């Protein structure tokens, strides 16, 4: 129970974390729903290192 709580607090401990977690999930879901799904699931470095950060930055500015 305590170990599960640690993960929950790390991701959803306060309102800011909850908001950021939802935002990150929505961003990654965009990639998951497009043609890059296989690369995302395979943890392709290009997707992890470039696509996700750039998409997050772009969505944050929108």
């Amino acid at each position: 129970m305590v170990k599960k709580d640690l993960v929950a607090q790390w991701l959803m401990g306060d309102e800011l974390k909850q908001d950021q977690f939802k935002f990150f999930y929505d961003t990654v879901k965009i990639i998951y729903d497009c043609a890059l799904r296989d690369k995302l699931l395979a943890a392709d470095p290009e997707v992890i290192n470039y696509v996700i950060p750039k998409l997050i930055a772009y969505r944050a500015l929108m």
Partner: protein
Amino acid sequence: MKAIYPEMTAIHNQAMEPLNKLIDANVNYYRLEQMIKEKREVPIFRKNALELEFCNHFTVICNIFRDFGVLKDHFDIVQMMKTLKIEDWKIITPFAYYLTPLHSAITTVRDSLRTMHKNGPLMRKYIIEKNEDL
């Protein structure tokens, strides 16, 4: 043993006191939750008070596990209960993914505590002879 060894009985009662308090607090909080589920009118301060009491006694037990057991991770029971009150977490996919296991874990703990209450204090085992620190 209780009739023959009053000194041992006193140690036993003292050792079991935090657990007994937690079991009672859990039952009180559970009964109030049932009243709320049945749509009976319950003052909000009563719910908050019983929840806080449950959290405090749970923290005492966790402190014992930390000081004398193998629980080394940080814990904050009040914060954990607060996290489980996030609105609509069951229908928000990322929240549900991480909070469902936590909810199941605490439900299991609380069900076990209620079973211990149902079985009565005589079924709560604490083998003093195995406690070498005494």
